[in-house]
């Protein structure tokens, strides 16, 4: 059943087994899974069935630190959430992501990969993709692997709209903006939903799940906690802290004697990552290097450039290019950030939205460790190319500079918002426990990438869906 809160506060149930707030991949997965198992769910979506300016405006905020895109274009606020414009790249987290890494003691999950694996096939089925191919080891000594992704075209709002309409167990209330929570101390009693006319209603449930997105989960918990004088979240919890992205940049070009696979969804490209051993040896976190084929004319230009600068190797490359062995590629590198206390979501002290809630202030800055990671990743790749006579790379000047990154458009941005309400074994280390329950409340849960304690190397959506299925499974037994 659908109800539009803008059309009035009456006419729909105000209590259910579960209240899920947010209808993106996380919230929708939890809500649908619980409803399919016979539980009553009220699903609150702040936006409408379609995108609107007035809803999107609520996502405005400020980024303090490094270059970032405007926060109201970095995410979508309507049915289906940001899946309305996601890129669809789907891959599971690596084994390494769940392990402790020397030098990055906090950057690991309190659960194991085997805790998520049982939900992989179902998550893939929701995303309507097959399991990506296993990694192929290209060079044992250099620890270079080719990896694959699957491409999902699922938009959660479109996919589940009919089911939301026909389901007797879900009441989906649109234009229902979360503006507050009430707790009796350890137990959330109700959520306040407010329409765009400023009228509010109270929703009661046995359990509450916040699935507002990788920034809004922190913002709304900070706000609700503030309203409740700190009685919502354990005072030791690092709420809003350890926010992360996957910085990624076009770092240059290369002429390579490597097979660049063709795909039906994108220009030919080769996806590379390093083995666990190499990552540990280099003392970096996870990373990838993408080689994207460039047009033949651009390859010729690159060859001419190389011949001019280094005639011997240039002529070698040109001779192979004549046999279609060498091709020109763009080099793109992206990496997992170290989780840092200083990168955080904060409530603005100067700007509020139409509901009087402080807008978000996102503090995000890359560190020397980010630059070192990028340099090590590329240096190792160059070592491989030279040692195996597989080509040469041409790097952008900033890569080995001391500071500064390109800062135009979406340079360096993957739109992957992670952390802020991270999962940990204790309230001192995180905001939610291994079942995504907020420390300090017995019936408040968080779904989405804000619970990620590290970024890993994978695009986050598949993990979000796996975690949401796991959460729904846990809640069914609650």
């Amino acid at each position, binding site marked *: 059943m659908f109800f539009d809160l803008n059309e009035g506060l009456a006419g729909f149930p105000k209590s259910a087994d579960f209240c899920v707030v947010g209808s993106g991949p996380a919230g929708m997965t939890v809500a649908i899974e619980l409803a399919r198992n016979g539980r009553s769910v009220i699903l609150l979506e702040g936006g409408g069935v379609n995108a609107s300016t007035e809803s999107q405006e609520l996502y405005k905020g400020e980024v303090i630190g490094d270059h970032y895109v405007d926060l109201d274009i970095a995410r979508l606020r309507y049915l289906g959430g940001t899946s309305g414009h996601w890129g669809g790249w789907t891959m599971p987290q690596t084994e390494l992501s769940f392990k402790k890494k020397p030098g990055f003691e906090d950057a690991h999950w309190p659960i194991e990969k085997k805790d998520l694996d049982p939900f992989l096939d179902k998550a893939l089925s929701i995303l309507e993709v097959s399991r990506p191919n296993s990694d192929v080891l290209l060079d044992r000594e250099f620890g270079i692997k080719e990896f694959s992704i699957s491409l999902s075209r699922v938009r959660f709002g479109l996919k589940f709209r009919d089911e939301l309409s026909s389901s007797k167990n879900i009441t989906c209330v649109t234009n229902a903006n979360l503006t507050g929570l009430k707790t009796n101390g350890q137990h959330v009693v109700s959520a306040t939903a407010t329409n765009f006319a400023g009228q509010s209603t109270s929703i009661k449930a046995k359990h509450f799940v916040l699935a507002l997105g990788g920034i809004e989960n922190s913002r709304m918990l900070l706000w609700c906690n503030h309203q409740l004088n700190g009685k919502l979240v354990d005072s030791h919890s690092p709420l809003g802290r350890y926010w992360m992205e996957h910085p990624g940049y076009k770092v*240059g070009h290369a002429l390579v004697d490597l097979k660049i696979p063709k795909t039906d969804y994108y220009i030919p490209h080769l996806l590379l990552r390093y083995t666990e051993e190499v990552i540990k040896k*280099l003392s970096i976190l996870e990373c990838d290097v993408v080689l994207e084929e460039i047009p033949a004319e651009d390859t010729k230009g690159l060859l001419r*450039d*190389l011949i001019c*600068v*280094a*005639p*011997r*190797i240039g002529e070698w490359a040109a001779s192979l290019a004549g046999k279609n062995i060498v091709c020109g590629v763009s080099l793109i590198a992206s990496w997992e950030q170290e989780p840092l206390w200083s990168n955080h979501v904060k409530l603005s002290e100067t700007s509020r939205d139409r509901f009087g809630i402080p807008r978000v202030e996102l503090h995000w800055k890359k560190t020397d460790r980010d630059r*070192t990671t990028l*340099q*090590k990743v590329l*240096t*190792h790749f*160059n*070592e491989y190319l*030279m*040692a*195996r006579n597989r080509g*040469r*790379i*041409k*790097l*952008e*000047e900033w*890569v*080995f*500079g*001391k500071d500064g990154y390109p800062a135009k458009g979406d340079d360096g941005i993957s739109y992957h918002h992670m952390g802020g309400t991270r999962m940990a074994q204790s309230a001192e280390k995180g905001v939610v426990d291994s079942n995504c329950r907020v420390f300090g409340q017995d019936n408040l849960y968080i779904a989405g990438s804000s619970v990620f304690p590290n970024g890993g190397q994978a695009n986050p959506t598949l993990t979000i869906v796996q975690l949401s299925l796991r959460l729904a499974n846990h809640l069914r037994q609650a």
Partner: protein
Amino acid sequence: MVFIWFVPFVFAPRRLLSKIHDNASAKNGAKFIKQGWVLQEGDV
């Protein structure tokens, strides 16, 4: 002769890497950067 580059470039101090990039055609023994290209002796 791959093995002559036994000391991996990857372990070159960052300061040094920055330095060789600043001086675009300066040679660092085995490997150097010239007009953005990462090259090694014998390439030019």
